């Protein structure tokens, strides 16, 4: 059992939790994830580590309530417990020699991009960060990102805050203006990572993306998280979750993500019916 020591709402759908998990915290690095299970009948889901505190032995997770499991998780309060919480899993992000980087977060992906920006910043890399959301109400981690970035750009699809448009537009402008990035880290919806990777490929800028496919165990055992990278099948849980964005077969990843769409809808619907039934 893993105690929730802090809970905070970042927006109407997105919550932050700090979880007491000393064995995860003492080795966690940016880019890695945990597998968690909320209750006895629950599924195992991967969540990327948003932050960690080795001294306090805690891990921060940020999640959006999109399905039954994340809604169950979001319903837990400070002082309550998550049943299972294993990690840190996956490979830590590896940046190589970098002077100037652009870190891009799309929606909830911002939560995963945050530790990467923080790490790059701590390594003395000049970091331009671009975070994008559908609208103003969904913005998360703006202040945190600003603290670890040289420059921060915020976009909204509907123009209700910051720059109207997409993160890829801002990146393109920055590159066109002559900013010489030797690394782009792009984390967010598959379509966004695909668009950014296509763009940076044109300019020949190394690009790291973080894949978040369906997983059961998170230790290399099920192979459900297969991703085609450079024509080879990789397991996101042990070979990733970070991959070279120019090599990832995003179209396949998008198709694979839809595998349990119907079941996800069914679970959510039944969960919501039950909740309404109890009111």
């Amino acid at each position, binding site marked *: 059992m893993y105690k929730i020591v802090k809970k905070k709402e970042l927006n109407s759908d997105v919550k932050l939790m700090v979880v007491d998990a000393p064995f995860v915290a003492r080795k966690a690095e940016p880019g890695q994830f945990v597998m968690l299970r909320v209750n006895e009948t629950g599924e195992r889901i991967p969540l990327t580590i948003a932050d960690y505190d080795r001294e306090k032995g805690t891990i921060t997770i940020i999640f959006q309530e999109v399905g039954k499991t994340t809604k169950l998780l979001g319903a837990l309060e400070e002082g309550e417990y998550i049943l299972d919480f294993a990690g840190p899993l996956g490979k830590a992000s590896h940046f190589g020699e970098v002077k100037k980087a652009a870190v891009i977060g799309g929606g909830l992906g911002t939560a995963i991009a945050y530790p990467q920006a923080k790490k790059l910043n701590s390594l003395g890399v000049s970091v331009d960060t671009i975070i994008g959301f559908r609208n103003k109400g969904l913005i998360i981690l703006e202040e945190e990102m600003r603290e670890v970035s040289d420059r921060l750009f915020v976009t909204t699809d509907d123009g209700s805050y910051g720059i109207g448009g997409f993160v890829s537009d801002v990146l393109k402008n920055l590159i066109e203006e002559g900013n010489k990035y030797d690394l782009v880290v792009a984390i967010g919806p598959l379509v966004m990572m695909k668009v950014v990777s296509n763009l940076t490929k044109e300019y020949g800028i190394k690009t790291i993306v973080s894949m978040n496919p369906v997983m059961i165990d998170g230790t290399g055992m*099920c192979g459900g998280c297969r991703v085609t990278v450079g024509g080879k099948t990789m397991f996101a849980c042990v070979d990733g979750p970070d991959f070279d964005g120019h090599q990832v077969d995003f179209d396949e990843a998008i*198709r694979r993500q839809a595998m349990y769409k119907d079941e996800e809808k*069914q679970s959510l619907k039944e969960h919501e019916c039950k909740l309404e039934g109890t009111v």
Partner: protein
Amino acid sequence: MPNMSLTKVKMPEQNPNERNKNFKEVATGYTEEMAIEEAKRCLECKTKPCMKGCPVNIQIPEFISLIAEGKFEEAYLKITETNSLPAICGRVCPQESQCEMYCVRGKKGEPVAIGRLERFAADWFMVNRKPKVHKIKKNGIKVAVVGSGPAGLTCAGDLAKMGYDVTIFEAFHTPGGVLTYGIPEFRLPKKLVQAEIDNVRNLGVKIMTNMVIGKSITVEELRDEGYEAVFIGSGAGLPSFMGIPGENLNGVYSANEFLTRINLMKAYMYPEVDTPVKVAENVAVVGGGNVAMDAARSAKRLGAEKVYIVYRRSEKEMPARVEEVHHAKEEGIIFKLLTNPTRILGTDDGWVKGMECVEMELGEPDESGRRRPVPKKGSEHVIDVGTVIIAIGQSPNPLIKSTTPGLETHKWGGIITDEETGVTSIPWVFAGGDVVTGAATVILAMGAGKKAAAAIDSYIKQKAEKDD
């Protein structure tokens, strides 16, 4: 007078056409009368030939003779002197190639049903007696065991009996390894697995779940935490794929994923539990081992109309137990033998719609001694399936190898050990089970765990003498 019947007392089973729709156990077990009758078939040979077929040295004639006398509790205690997991072994050991292979009664007629009797004693004890909590004098020396499958549980149990302070580190949320995630409920009920694991806990063994060794903590760090020796029994968890086109289509599972969803996550109870599993109307399972049989029989139970076993050799070469093949056939699994998949066909939006196969014929024997299958020209054909499950084998998970400097492994990933002691290239690290042999049987893993426990004990004692 011994019972001279040439055949075993028949094991009661659920009717094939009923059981292929539920996940309840196929074989329902002997009654007391049946067990006594079967036990009386044992001739109590002085030379005990059966025992040389048992990797965990169960005193077979002794426990069978106790059953024949109706002393079921004593029979159970006799078995557990050397085997902590009899309800499991009685169900999943391939007795036909172990103890029962050496049974004198097998020379003319069927051997004594040693496995069924072992199972009977274990089940009887579970129903009629309370689990024993043992008072063992502790020696205060810490030993770590990585993985709570058959190898790890056996090693831990034996070390605990010797007085060691044993902690098992398990990556999943539920212990048991392949007994929990791999072997289906209808062959090995999970309640029973957990009960036998509780018996190991009752010996004083601690089990820490959600601990991924190599990630949460490394083998070397375990030593820094004060563990004098480490036993690695992390199994063969890495699924192999065929490398044919279409393997990443939606609807293609590794047997590991398919079975883990069903067994560990209980997807057969979806939507009562949250983990789903998808089974199309027609399903192809590629492979001919026990895992393939388990996957095929599970798919049938989940409602598939037609389930095919697609295997490139003939039935004679199938690595699955005869009993499993027999059960699968009874349940309506269709065997497409001498057939090999060449590609998986998909719809425009990425779902499996069929599997192209080629017929094979057997040529000269290969390195394994089995006749090598070669494709027949022009025999390509498509099987109409919406789900494909790949069950062509598993290799050891590389997590521990890659995070333990100095640990020598074979090219295929297996840890290199001394066969008698299980010691690895690192003197305080031992290993056994599938992580050493590649995917094999529960009982071989248990045998390796047992040998390693004895070797760990002598290693620690020798070291203590040197230090003095």
